[in-house]
């Protein structure tokens, strides 16, 4: 830490110059500079997409994107967080729709406007193949769209930069829910177990465990731990 404190870098937060210690993430640099975040910070670990950031490196013209909590601030960086993306989310009743090939286009017709420029893929801080899943949607391949979009944190940067006004991350949510509900097979074990529970198959045993003395229960617990299932080699 001491070492870091000695060395500082210059960053431009929304155009204003600040000196911050080297080695901080963009989010921590913003905070160090004196901003108490209300928007723009969520999970702080790369899962919620609240800290979508646009930045430019020193001596570059290119605008880059990142999650502020997962990216180091660099000397000479110009940056701003994007507090909100006003993208449209379609409403649907999942129960009432079918995973037909054109279903996503029905709710998000703008998907058809994709000009294959690949800006979305380049704008994804998760490095997803965004354009490829949009193409999969156009082909009606819901499974492929679901799979390719799975790691999406819904930060909205793709939609913010798309010249065809596609709302990739919301369309992908629909694809994944359709896949999970209709295309993946339901678990056969689950049905059986729920029926057993409803028929009271485990009531007696749980009741017995609940009335067991502490020592006996401990003994039984350790036996259970000892006989734990093991991975087959």
């Amino acid at each position, binding site marked *: *830490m001491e*070492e*870091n404190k000695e060395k500082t870098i210059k960053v431009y937060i929304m155009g204003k110059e600040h000196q911050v210690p080297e080695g901080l*993430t963009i989010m921590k640099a913003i*905070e*160090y*500079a*004196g*901003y*108490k*975040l*209300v*928007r723009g*910070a*969520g*999970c702080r*670990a*790369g*899962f*919620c997409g*609240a800290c979508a950031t646009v930045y430019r490196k020193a001596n570059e013209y290119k605008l880059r994107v990142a999650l502020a909590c*997962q990216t*180091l601030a660099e000397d000479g960086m110009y940056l701003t967080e994007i507090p909100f993306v006003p993208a449209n989310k379609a*409403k649907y009743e*999942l129960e009432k729709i079918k995973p037909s090939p054109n279903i996503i286009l029905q709710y998000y017709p703008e998907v058809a406007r994709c000009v294959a420029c690949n800006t979305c893929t380049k704008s994804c801080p998760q*490095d997803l193949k965004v354009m490829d899943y949009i193409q999969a949607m156009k082909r009606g391949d819901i499974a492929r769209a679901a799979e390719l979009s*799975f*790691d999406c944190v*819904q930060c909205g940067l793709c939609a913010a930069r798309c010249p065809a006004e596609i709302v990739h991350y919301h369309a992908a*949510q629909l694809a*994944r*829910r*359709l*896949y*999970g*509900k*209709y295309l*993946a*097979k*339901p*678990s056969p*074990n*689950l049905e*059986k*177990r*729920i029926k057993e*529970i409803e028929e009271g198959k*485990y009531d007696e*045993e*749980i009741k017995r*465990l*609940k009335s067991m003395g502490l020592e006996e*229960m*401990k003994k039984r*617990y*350790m036996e*259970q*731990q000892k006989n*734990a*299932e093991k991975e087959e080699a």
Partner: protein
Amino acid sequence: MEMIRGYPDYMRESIEMVAKTREARAKETMRRLTLEERDEVLKNFHPDYKPDAKAEIRIGRSKGEKAPKEVVELLEAMPLIDESDVNLNQIDFDVDILIIGGGGAGTVAALWAYYSGVPIENILMCTKLRHGDANTMMAQGGIQAADRPEDSPAIHYLDVLGGGHFTNNPDLVEKLVMEAPKIIKWHEQLGVMYDKDENGNFIEISGGGTSRFRMHSAKDYTGMEIMRVLRDEFRNLGMRVLEFTSAVELLTDGNEVTGAVLFNMETKQYYVVRAKAVILATGGFGRLHIMGFPTTNHYGATGDGLVLAYRTGARLVDMDSVQYHPTGAAFPEPIVGLLITEKVRGLGAQVVNKYGKQFVFPLEPRDVEAASIIKECYSTENYVVTPTGLRGVWLDSPLIELLRGEGTVVKSLGAMYRMFHRFGIDMSQDPILTFPTLHYQNGGVAINVNAETDVKGLFACGEVAGGVHGKNRLMGNSLLDVNVFGKIAGISAAKYVKHKKSKGKLTLAHLDRYMKELKEAGIKSEKRAPMLLPDYRGKAVLSRKLDIVV
């Protein structure tokens, strides 16, 4: 300092030793500790047992019990508002159910309140960040449910109880395990994409302290996948949420909870909410940085719900135990304290020291695993030290590739791989450095099997509630908890509001009572609570701060 594939050159020597022992180690299984051995390592090395970790609660329903010092300070703090600040006669939202917290538990509660017949316009949710910016979103490893023929709810029950050192509320545990398969079914119907084989069978692995494979996952984005789907359903239904709006005080008629005062953190205005029932789903307290630990928790995890509920007369349970996740990132510096999911060990990664030697069974219950790692780092010389002086041990992630085939890390641990890759480390080739991190509030507001607190009109679910996990939670039981008890809270609150004909008076009478108690105990605090958000601004800036309204 020269860096080689993400690590400073001096760490490479140890990394080589880990690689060298890998193949032989792959066949080696560490013995699980006995209950006595578990107790011993906990007593000597778990942060909970440090003499200065806890303080006694001096007021309120749980007077005399112990809690982390940081929590007691909040319980003894002054309120953010008093009667003169707010006009309680002017009601901004008049609803049946107010849900405080927009994470997993709150969203599930909202959906089930609606399924149970409460009209959408009579349900209101508020959350201090955005809807879904919560620990649920960050849960990676999985969700437990005993649904395989080799498993049963009774086996699950005993695993939960043993993991919690037999301190859990047995009735709550029974609910947890019996509801579990139904929750997974509900998720299937909502379209959650769990990892399955081609026949629809879940791919299930083990977690710390579980004696059967019952961890259902969605890669290592399990919580994110569940939270995304729940939120999407909430939005499809057109349910109402106030974002960046936190609760600063509950309202009561003197005894029963009748509403809350909310605070719009952006415009700084307050809202008065009148509700027949309030569901507390505010999550945990990681951002209090108990004992100075870094945390895996989201930005808003400041224990607000504990403070709000306690002032109305609710009881707290098991607040003396805090969960440190065994494997937080210890390197590189920008991600120190962030979660390395237990699924890494579930898939076969071993915990090894500087010399590439195992020293603990990788899947002990979390408190035991964490204490064992602290022991290795602070009672032996077998730890690795980072450039900033932190100590850690290796999590041998490349072993997963050896056991389960090349490409498993990228495929099953995409989030983890991505996190380290962003800083130049390839965890499928090199091990990752780890040390325990503050993860979970084991205890909380006491509830019964209907998610009711001791205060009428106040329900609680998820991490803010206590009793389900006793003094130690097992992996995969918190995603389950938020779903099971979120559902129960939604259903119970719906039933409650149906029978409650009139809405109550809105007062801060409970605060007067609380302030009186503080005064009588001779407690004078400079602090104010709830905290709402931690303050990470630089000291240089804060030392020059002026309070000028602009």
